[in-house]
């Protein structure tokens, strides 16, 4: 599913895109969606596009190519629960050998570059470490507690604040 929402122009660069990934029925994997929903609810106006999606797809390359700033938000199974990380994303040099239904942010930037000859000036991936991915529509306590910090990280990223 994909939904879109807008944000005040003054809150972000002219063409900003937030790609929020995850599955709200798989416990902490839904944190990306919740952050995307929160951003969409807290702001109003035009300019920021919020896309909620279960996974990154080649079709997202077009919107990425049109954005100046892109922020990917997702849960991470590889970091400690509740850990909020912000990592700069560059277009991948080498593409994955076999495409199924999953792409990582770097590959998507590369696809945007190859297809549309353009990629955003600034792209970051913000992840929240998760601990529970069983069938549930609830976040674990550490992940729930991390949502405000993740939202703050999103706001900084949308303003183009360099990654430390």
């Amino acid at each position, binding site marked *: *599913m*994909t939904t879109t929402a807008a944000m005040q122009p003054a809150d972000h660069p002219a063409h900003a895109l937030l790609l929020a990934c995850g599955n709200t029925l798989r416990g902490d994997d839904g944190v990306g969606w919740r952050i995307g929903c929160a951003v969409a609810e807290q702001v109003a106006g035009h300019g920021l596009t919020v896309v909620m999606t279960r996974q990154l797809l*080649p*079709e997202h*390359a*077009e919107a990425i190519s049109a954005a100046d700033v892109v922020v990917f938000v997702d849960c991470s199974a590889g970091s400690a629960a509740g850990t909020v990380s912000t990592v700069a994303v560059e277009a991948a040099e080498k*593409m*994955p*050998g*076999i*495409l*199924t*239904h*999953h792409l990582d942010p770097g*590959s998507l930037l*590369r*696809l945007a570059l*190859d*297809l*549309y*000859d353009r990629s955003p000036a600034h792209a970051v991936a913000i992840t929240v470490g998760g601990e529970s991915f069983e069938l549930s529509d609830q976040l674990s306590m550490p992940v729930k507690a991390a949502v405000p910090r993740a939202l703050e990280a999103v706001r900084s990223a949308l303003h183009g604040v360099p990654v430390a």
Partner: protein
Amino acid sequence: MAQTITIDPVTRLEGHGRITLKTNADGEVCEAFFSVTQVRGFEKFCEGRPYYEMPALMARICGICPVSHLIASAKACEAIMAVNIPPTAAKLRRALNLAQTIQSHALSFFYLASPDLLLGMESDPAERNIFGVAKMHPELGRAGVGLRRFGQHMIELLGRKRIHPGWVVPGGVTEALDAAKRDEILALLPEAYANATMALAAYKQIAGRFQDEVESFANFPGLFMGMVSEAGRLEFTDAKLRMIDAEGLVLVDGMGAAQFDQYIGEAVEPYSYMKFPYLKSLGYPRGVYRVGPLARLNIASHTGTPLADAELNEFKKLAKGPVLGSFHYHHARLIEILHGIEVIEQLFSDPTILDKHVRATAGVNQQEGAGIAEAPRGTLMHHYKVDEKGLMKWANLVIATGQNNHAMNKGVLQVAKRYVKSDKLTEGMLNRVEAVIRTFDPCLSCSTHAFGQMPLVIELLAPDGAKLDEVRRP
């Protein structure tokens, strides 16, 4: 020495399958099996649920063609309710089914098949994917992305969700179309036309390079089944089924959903969980048949839309009778994309598409009902039995991919005999064995999509089961 070659899993398919090739003492392929190794159980776990839940439940079978399941299921429910849905609801469902067909065909052609077609069967597997296409042929990559976006966005506009929309219900649809959405869809059409016509032109330019594959990719005389109007026009949603033989002779005509199980039986083979449907009057395996784009275009005399009709006329010149080579599924898919765009334009240019009466209501008036629709991959049939309260007692689903099961097996054997020599396995040989399956665009697991990399493993086994050799795709 006799050997067994296993390709497991097969890549760039919707789901997981396994190919096993058996060679004789001379090293020639003598048997081939395409196995589907998953069990879903949808027919069983729906028992006891109210019939009106079925469309929403059954749509979860597939993440690519949930709309077809929604429609076939809703039609089965409407047979139980004994109602006719409002004309505008039928038009909206028709448009939704075509939007799904467009995005699904675009996925099949551009993302899964075009790497073989544009970069070559023997090309580096690390490059032979949509990224390789984007690098070498960005205009076609953009067309593929554009057609996917068009179909998905239209599904989202109509059904509020790109995947598993709940809009189609027993009796019609939940919500009428408003003028703003109609106008938004109409505004997307010029780009969709441009992408579809460009893809068709590009395909026709390169198809000549694959004459060997055209000859050997499941190219054999056989039966075809698909939905057409009484006048023979290509249909996807509200018409009856016709079956023809390899010469084009009509074997069955006017087959409605209620007659489906009178005509069609389902055989089983020990090596696969997927069944083998066949025409009962001819028996199994003589009565096996193909469905999907190639079958539909072989059966239809015309599409009813001008651009697709011109393409269909050209397509039919590929053979004197029905086009028998399954490689031409790719071509047929592109023609159906063009046809879908034209029909959507026709439907949305008709002011009655905004009619507010889009749902009929009724209770249980029959205790059995069946529904059919053309899914992107072919004919789809849902058949239900309920008790007097409308609780599900029994369900049977005949899925498009199952109806191509025998043809896929036959195609694998045909290609393997031509290309695979067990003493010298090459990537190109094995890719062709997979590519013949891809021509059918089978949807094996449907709703459970593969995640991450699917490695290709080929094992050479001696008759006693000992592993002689193994090749792994990076």
